[in-house]
């Protein structure tokens, strides 16, 4: 961006013309348009390549396809776009919680191209997460263009996410809810309105392109009480599937990183494995929407054992694709897994109690999808609304709610963090809004540093110290060598009381003999979490702050932290 553009915008920034809320709502429109276009473009490209490669029928060639896709994907992501972190959604969540939603402009296309290579060549991954990154990067950079502050920028990132999900699924509500429930983590009206606008615009863009069609047409269902009761069992099944999925994914990711240090070799190895699995079971390849369509329309029949195998293989194929460095998301694979699980559960029910009048397998597939999404993402609302919108299956809302909510609770017991939060949690970077960790992460030592102190020299006699405290009302004094500037410790007036009341000691005691705070100190860059820890361990109220050369900068007190913490809490939680 040229300097004159910046100059122009800072002079004529329309932010100053509207009130904040109105402006954010207006800005939701361009973010929605761009996000919608990005998702349409990716969808189009995937279809184009799928059509192109459908001419290749030789299965022996197809074995090598996922490996080629992985190679291209990794090449574009690392060599061309220099993205350091491949997992798409965690990048956005981290940026929202820690960097005020700051994202590179290049992320708007890097993940799209990376993911296109993966999916078009048959890798088992979904296109949603990359579109989410693309949408949020568009939102973030539009916000930057208008010099918005961090909270407003986060709202724009939320708009981008909602636009991406809404457009790719033709599901405006799911977009809004995914954005708020999974990524932003706080339901504030300042976020909600622009996100809703953006979601509507993006959905309309996608409808202009593809027409208003529901992605997966379903038959109408007759849901009985028995079906609702049976859905409880399905919740358990999908939770277990989600648990295995998350575990296998994390295992393969760690194992692959140990086995192959070279990114390309790692990707090719993963791709070859996926290719071989796909050679025998082509249903597990790609994003898998064709399979979902068949299952929902009840045109997919496999023996029970094969269904179990397919679930295992889909988990394996997705983990091998995403765990070895290819770009892509877990959204679509989770839906496929949910479909398989739902169908499997229905088959088991039919085998156990054939004449109970169960609703058809397509309906259970649909419930399974809602359950798996909820369990994998720990996001029940996203699961419910997404499935209702993409299948038009509002008749199934009651068992849907049961499965989604139950699966989330069970999954929360089984896995500590959802697939998106796991990576951040391991790095200690999971900072959800309005949490203690987030507030402590925001406050820095510099915010609460008290600098102006009367210093005293280590060889000061107690008599002189008594004279000093008569005219100076500090509660404690840092002891600093006046020549070398070296910090010795702190003298607390309250703790020195026994000496102060014994005049016979006045000439016998030097202040360096009554110092404290010698063996603990913090640096200005320490996190408040660490500082609070130190307070606990040392049982003190005040800690000295030293820089890397051990020069005394000031002190931090517990009461100042409490003061700032309360203010921070108020500012962050009220709008």
């Amino acid at each position, binding site marked *: 961006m040229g300097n004159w553009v910046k100059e122009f915008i800072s002079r004529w920034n329309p932010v*100053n013309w509207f009130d904040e809320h109105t402006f954010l709502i207006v800005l939701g429109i361009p973010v929605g348009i761009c996000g919608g276009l990005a998702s349409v473009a990716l969808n189009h490209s995937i279809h184009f390549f799928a059509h192109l490669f459908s001419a290749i029928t030789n299965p022996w060639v197809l074995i090598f396809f996922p490996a080629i896709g992985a190679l291209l994907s990794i090449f574009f992501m690392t060599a061309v776009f220099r993205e350091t972190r491949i997992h798409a959604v965690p990048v956005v969540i981290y940026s929202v919680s820690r960097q005020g939603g700051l994202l590179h402009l290049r992320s708007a296309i890097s993940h799209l191209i990376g993911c296109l290579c993966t999916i078009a060549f048959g890798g088992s991954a979904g296109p949603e997460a990359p579109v989410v990154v693309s949408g949020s990067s568009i939102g973030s950079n539009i916000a930057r263009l208008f010099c918005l502050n961090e909270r407003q920028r986060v709202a724009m990132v939320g708009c981008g996410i909602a636009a991406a999900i809404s457009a790719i699924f033709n599901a405006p509500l799911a977009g809004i809810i995914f954005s708020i429930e999974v990524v932003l983590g706080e339901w504030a009206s300042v976020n909600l309105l622009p996100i809703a606008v953006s979601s509507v615009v993006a959905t309309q863009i996608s409808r202009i392109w593809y027409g208003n069609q529901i992605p997966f047409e379903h038959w109408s269902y007759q849901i009985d009480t028995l079906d609702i009761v049976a859905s409880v069992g399905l919740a358990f099944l999908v939770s277990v599937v989600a648990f295995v999925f998350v575990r296998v994914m994390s295992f393969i990711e760690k194992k692959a990183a140990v086995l192959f240090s070279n990114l390309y070799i790692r990707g090719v190895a993963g791709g070859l494995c996926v290719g071989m699995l796909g050679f025998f079971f082509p249903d597990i390849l790609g994003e898998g929407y064709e399979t979902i369509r068949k299952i929902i329309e009840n045109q997919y029949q496999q023996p029970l054992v094969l269904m179990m195998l397919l679930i295992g293989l889909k988990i394996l194929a997705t983990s091998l694709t995403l765990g070895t460095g290819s770009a892509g998301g877990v959204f679509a694979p989770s839906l496929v897994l949910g479909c398989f699980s739902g169908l499997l559960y229905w088959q088991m029910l039919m085998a156990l109690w054939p004449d109970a009048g169960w609703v058809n397998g397509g309906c259970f597939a649909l419930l399974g999808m809602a359950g798996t999404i909820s369990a994998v993402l720990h996001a029940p609302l996203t699961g419910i609304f997404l499935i209702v919108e993409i299948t038009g299956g509002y008749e199934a809302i009651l068992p849907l709610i049961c499965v989604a909510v139950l699966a989330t609770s069970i999954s929360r017991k089984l896995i500590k963090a959802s697939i998106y939060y796991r990576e951040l949690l391991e790095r200690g970077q999971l900072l959800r809004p309005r949490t203690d960790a987030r507030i402590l992460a925001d*406050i820095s030592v510099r915010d*609460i540093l008290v600098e102006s102190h009367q210093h*005293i020299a280590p060889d*000061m006699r107690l008599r002189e110290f008594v*004279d000093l405290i*008569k*005219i100076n*009302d500090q509660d404690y004094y840092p002891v600093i060598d006046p020549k070398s500037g070296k910090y010795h410790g702190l003298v607390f007036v309250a703790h020195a009381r026994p000496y102060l009341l014994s005049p016979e000691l006045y000439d016998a005691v030097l202040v360096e003999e009554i110092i404290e705070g010698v063996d603990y100190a913090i640096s200005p860059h320490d996190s408040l979490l660490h500082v609070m820890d130190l307070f606990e361990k040392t049982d003190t109220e005040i800690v000295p702050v030293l820089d890397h050369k051990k020069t005394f900068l000031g002190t931090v007190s517990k009461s100042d932290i409490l003061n700032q913490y309360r203010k921070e809490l108020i500012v962050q939680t009220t709008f």
Partner: protein
Amino acid sequence: MLFSRSSSNLIEIPQAARLLGISQHALERWIRQGGVPCRQGYGRTLFDKGELRAWATSKNLAWLEGENKTASKSVDLIQALFAGGVYSGIPGCSNVEVLEQAVQVISLPDDVDNELLIRKLQERESLASTGLGQGIAVPHPRHPLKESIQVPMVATCFLNEPVDFGAIDQEPVFVLFLMLAPSTQQHLKLLAQLSFCLREKQFLAFLHEIPDLESLCNRVQAIQDQIGRR
């Protein structure tokens, strides 16, 4: 339009941070995060004071206007001596008389009712002598004159001839340090600082020379500096 210079209600970051009782560093972060209402442009940030106060009040945040924290914390004897001034040749032969004469001579803030002040000083004197010994007395009212005194002041009044104040050591008083402070804490701090100076024999001898305001303040500064240096 954005920053109309005519409005005196616009304040900058340091002042806003002081009013909110947070560090500048923290306030700059709030601005970046968008937590606080401000106006940005031309590379600077300004706050509308009224708007900021309304925002702080609506959020139950402290608003430190009027409560001058630093003033109540650090009371400087030298400043108080300057505010009070030095007067010599106060006539009178009893403590009641010299107090009356002293109040008439020294320049007090307009709000102070001289008669009332004299009555209050004499009342305090009748309870217990304010003579500290060695010829020094520190007359003051029992309760601080909150309404009429805004700045702490110590008026130094050298008497025409020493007067008996009923001090502990029975020595007649030759100088009054008339102390008027807005609060009890400030009064106590002034008293502490003064008594610290009076411990020095040389300072007492110096007072007998009846110094002018400037040399008195310089001397007090020198005594206080000694401690700071050590």
